[in-house]
């Protein structure tokens, strides 16, 4: 039997089908047997050199790609998403129910920090549980879990007015892939505080089923909400608290395309708020008085994407301030995600400024605008 290097290598790697025969032949050929041992030693040496990498914790951004949002090349819609009609027709692949209860400090809040009295009253649990009063003063103890959110002491109001709500496509884009693949639906209840500018900061109040990334996905979706300054009843929204249930539900197949149904949780239906009475104005054909130049593009182009020759497309939706600059921008579309294009586009949006009137003579301030930004390098 011919025992050349490739044969010995295959034998050393446990790949040769005539292993028994070779083993017998090697018994009388100590030099070749030593060669096999060398080959095995080399294999181990190479494997050992790279083994530590597999014991590192992968960077979180890699895990995040697999846990949360799915990269979907989305169609850029110029239609406003605020009107209910648009909300319904935009249901592309999934049907998502999404209703925000318009009550500050509304029910369904299960966190221990909000167990007690009605909002608007100072209850006996007003002191955070980690403060203990003793004759010698207050003792602050480190809470075992995250400190409870500061209690809102505002009267309950109803009828939140939304300037911006995520459309079905947005929610679809964030649908956790693994769950979607298995037709698993999920519900997340977010407990949110309204900022001065109408955006919301949320924590996850409940998430079910856990482990599919629904919570993280809902937190991403939450970035697409913007409240009007005042509720329909005139109460200011800022600093208020609002509970938002978000349901991810796979579309029940193509059977009857005409029958579009939203799966809405019962509690959400009863407390569904009125949408903005006057849908927010979307400004088109603005007259730009300042736009980012190519230097800005070069500076803000995400370095990693540049290195890898990645192109990106982002749409940011912004509120137009009185001076024509863009504020409260959010990313409504980012393709591909994970390369920093969204953040770069948000920075770039700060450099736009428009005139007080559009080409058609309509006022711009107070309206919304969708700004598409493409990141592409000329080769």
């Amino acid at each position, binding site marked *: 039997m011919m025992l050349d290097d490739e044969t010995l290598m295959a034998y050393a790697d446990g790949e040769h089908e005539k292993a028994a025969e070779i083993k017998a032949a090697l018994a009388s050929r100590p030099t070749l047997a030593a060669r096999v041992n060398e080959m095995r030693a080399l294999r181990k040496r*190479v494997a050992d050199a790279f083994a530590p990498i597999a014991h590192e914790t992968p*960077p979180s951004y890699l895990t995040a790609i697999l846990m949360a949002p799915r990269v979907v090349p989305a169609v850029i819609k110029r239609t406003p998403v605020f009107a209910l009609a648009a909300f319904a027709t935009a249901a592309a692949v999934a049907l998502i129910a999404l209703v925000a209860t318009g009550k500050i400090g509304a029910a369904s809040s299960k966190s221990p920090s909000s167990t007690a009295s009605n909002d608007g009253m100072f209850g006996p649990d007003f002191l955070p549980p980690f403060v203990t009063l003793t004759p010698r003063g207050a003792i602050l103890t480190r809470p075992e879990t995250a400190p409870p959110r500061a209690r809102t002491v505002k009267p309950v109001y109803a009828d939140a007015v939304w300037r911006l709500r995520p459309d079905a496509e947005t929610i679809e884009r964030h649908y956790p892939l693994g769950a979607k693949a298995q037709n698993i639906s999920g519900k997340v209840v977010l407990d949110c505080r309204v900022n001065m500018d109408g955006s919301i900061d949320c924590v996850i109040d409940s998430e079910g089923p856990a482990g599919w990334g629904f919570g993280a996905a809902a937190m991403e979706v939450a970035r697409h909400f913007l409240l009007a300054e005042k509720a329909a009843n005139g109460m200011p929204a800022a600093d208020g608290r609002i509970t938002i249930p978000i349901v991810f539900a796979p579309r029940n197949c193509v059977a009857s395309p005409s029958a579009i149904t939203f799966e809405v949780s019962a509690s959400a239906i009863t407390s569904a708020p009125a949408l903005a009475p006057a849908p927010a104005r979307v400004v088109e054909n603005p007259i730009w008085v300042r736009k980012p130049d190519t230097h800005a593009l070069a500076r803000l182009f995400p370095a990693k994407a540049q290195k890898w020759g990645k192109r990106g497309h982002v749409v940011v939706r912004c509120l137009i301030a009185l001076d024509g600059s863009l504020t409260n921008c959010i990313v409504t579309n980012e393709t591909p995600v994970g390369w920093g294009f969204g953040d770069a586009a948000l920075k770039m949006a700060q450099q736009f400024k428009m005139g007080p009137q559009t080409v058609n003579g309509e006022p711009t301030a107070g309206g919304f605008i969708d700004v598409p930004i493409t990141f592409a390098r000329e080769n």
Partner: protein
Amino acid sequence: MGGTDLSAALAGLLPRLRRFARALTGSAADADDLVQASIERALRSAGQFRPGTSVPSWIFRIMKNLWIDEIRARASREKLFAPEALASSAITDGAGAMETHLHASHVQRIVSTLPEDQRLAIALVLVEGLSYREAADVLDVPIGTLTSRLARGRAAIEAALTSVVETTS
């Protein structure tokens, strides 16, 4: 992917994908970029995954293809940006190489200098422990080709290790 959870499978494979990417690219930064690009590609083309086939083999093939595309694109970019850009990229490559030297072991460094086809064979069989058959499938080559690449790669590593010993002693 019919009933199986691709995301979860890939999440479980992440440590291995990073290791394979390191063997393939020879640089920590390139490796994680390659993993990112590959899992994005895998998720987008999840529909093309045939149930019953091996997820590792499938994603390794995606990584191989992306990496080969990437080195070709880099080569053509360097040709296009003459000569000023070439100089700056040479500087970058120098810094990258230094970083690699600081972090990688002798063996990692030697593997990174192998020709692409030998490095792929070494990475799949010796680092990732694929069988010859599986590795040949990932690379879309006959098993004989895989075997000879592997043999040449091994010989090159052995030679490099020996010369290191000779020069340092």
